[in-house]
């Protein structure tokens, strides 16, 4: 199923497989189109996937590269899918799984999209990669560029969490902190991308980049024993991951690699930046832009590029797009940590809090198999859990231990 062209999602105009992201006819987004699969031996294809590397390159047949993936890439993907029985029990649900994408080289799902964008950028002959980022992408672009020996430029809002800034600069990138929010950074980068011969992974390389998120769906299906879950709960910032996860399942259903239908898709946003949830609630697909004000900075995109498609997908699959408050996000981080041992960043708190909300609302049948996509690592947003628990500080004596610490008195 080699990639064949870039096709406009709106007017279906066709373009060659270049570093291009906008339809010149209608300004719609371009998406990679693949050659029809024809007759497929699904057993053979499954075996080939299973014999592949323990990274997203085991799915290279479904990714927009024309050559073999480069060898000098960080091994993105193939992250654990963990059954979360204690979380399920706490929420009154039957079967809950956590797709833990914090277990990536730079600790977020962004390693997937960058791996694909960078590989394609190398095929197209680029020497420099760049991005507009809310933090996780910054880490990934800087690290993958270092691994591949490419030059990189990373533009971020200047008020990002310190952990994300430090974990970007260390790789020796050109780090540019822009005084403004992510949407300001994105606007600036869109202008820069028009003037420089750089591969901006989430701008002119966006059609290739976004395809990387499909591998989350492939992995979930393969890890469940070539099966599709009933429901996915995933965060929405631009809406790219959310829509591409569904596309991954759709492709495999169409090929006959898995049976069933696309899962019910539930999107998760922070109330302080919820243009997609608002559009869903209002019954429109027009996402009015907002000025973000939330602790979930990795989801703080007020002007979501794929918002209309995310709304449409949630509706089409019988799902929803919900939002949660900052307090619910903090509680979500704690809930996931205390029931699964997984410490996620604020975006994962949003996802967990929305899962809880859906469970409490009675949207999820106890017979359902639910997968929550946890996209990033808690160590990157440490400030949000400060003060949410008690530490017992004591003198180094046994008496002090017994006196101060609950449950410390020996029987």
């Amino acid at each position: 199923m080699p990639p064949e062209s870039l096709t406009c999602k709106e007017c279906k105009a066709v373009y060659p497989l270049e570093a291009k992201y906008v339809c010149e006819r209608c300004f719609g987004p371009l998406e990679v189109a693949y050659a029809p699969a024809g007759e497929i031996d699904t057993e053979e294809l499954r075996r080939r996937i299973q014999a592949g590397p323990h990274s997203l390159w085991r799915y290279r047949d479904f990714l927009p590269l024309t050559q073999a993936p480069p060898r000098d890439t960080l091994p993105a993907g193939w992250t654990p899918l963990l059954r979360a029985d204690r979380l399920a029990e706490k929420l009154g649900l039957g079967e809950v799984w956590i797709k833990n994408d914090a277990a990536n080289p730079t600790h977020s799902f962004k390693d997937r999209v960058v791996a694909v964008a960078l590989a394609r950028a190398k095929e197209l002959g680029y020497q420099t990669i760049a991005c507009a980022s809310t933090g996780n992408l910054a880490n990934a672009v800087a690290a993958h560029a270092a691994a591949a020996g490419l030059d990189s430029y990373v533009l971020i809002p200047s008020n990002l969490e310190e952990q994300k800034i430090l974990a970007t600069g260390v790789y020796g990138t050109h780090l540019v902190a822009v005084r403004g929010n992510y949407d300001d950074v994105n606007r600036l980068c869109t202008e820069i991308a028009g003037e420089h011969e750089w591969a901006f992974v989430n701008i002119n390389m966006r059609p290739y980049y976004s395809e990387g998120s499909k591998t989350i769906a492939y992995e979930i299906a393969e890890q469940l024993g070539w099966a599709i879950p009933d429901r996915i709960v995933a965060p929405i910032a631009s809406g790219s991951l959310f829509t591409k996860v569904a596309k991954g399942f759709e492709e495999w259903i169409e090929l006959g690699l898995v049976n069933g239908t696309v899962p019910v898709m539930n999107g998760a946003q922070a109330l302080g930046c919820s243009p997609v949830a608002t559009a869903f609630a209002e019954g429109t697909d027009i996402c009015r832009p907002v000025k973000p004000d939330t602790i979930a900075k990795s989801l703080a995109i007020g002007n979501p590029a794929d918002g209309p498609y995310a709304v449409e997908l949630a509706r089409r699959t019988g799902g929803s797009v919900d939002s949660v408050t900052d307090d619910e996000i903090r509680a979500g981080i704690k809930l996931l940590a205390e029931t699964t041992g997984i410490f996620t960043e604020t975006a994962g708190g949003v996802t967990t809090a929305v899962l809880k909300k859906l469970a409490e609302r009675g949207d999820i049948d106890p017979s359902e198999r639910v997968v929550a996509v946890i996209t990033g690592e808690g160590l990157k947003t440490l400030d949000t859990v400060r003060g949410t628990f008690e530490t017992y500080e004591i003198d180094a004596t046994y008496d002090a231990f017994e006196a101060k610490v609950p449950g410390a008195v020996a029987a």
Partner: protein
Amino acid sequence: MAVTVKIPTQLRAATGGASTASVDGTTVGEVLDALYAEFGELRERIADDGGLRRFVNVYIGGEDIRFLDGLETSVSDGDEVTILPAVAGG
């Protein structure tokens, strides 16, 4: 009132390669109409039934016009209007 409009690379085929245009108008809508009058092909690329296509963003001095008064937003002499594709980022 003269306003500078920055043209994105994707639309420069319609402006004979020009990256900026200087046009008159008192609102964003008037500025765009003046731009269409000069470069007819731009209208079909970015305009939609009296408004803008959904994947077109327009900014004045860096601010999205949807946070202002949309096409009714007034412009002043020397303002800079930027047209950009909306499909970026994330």
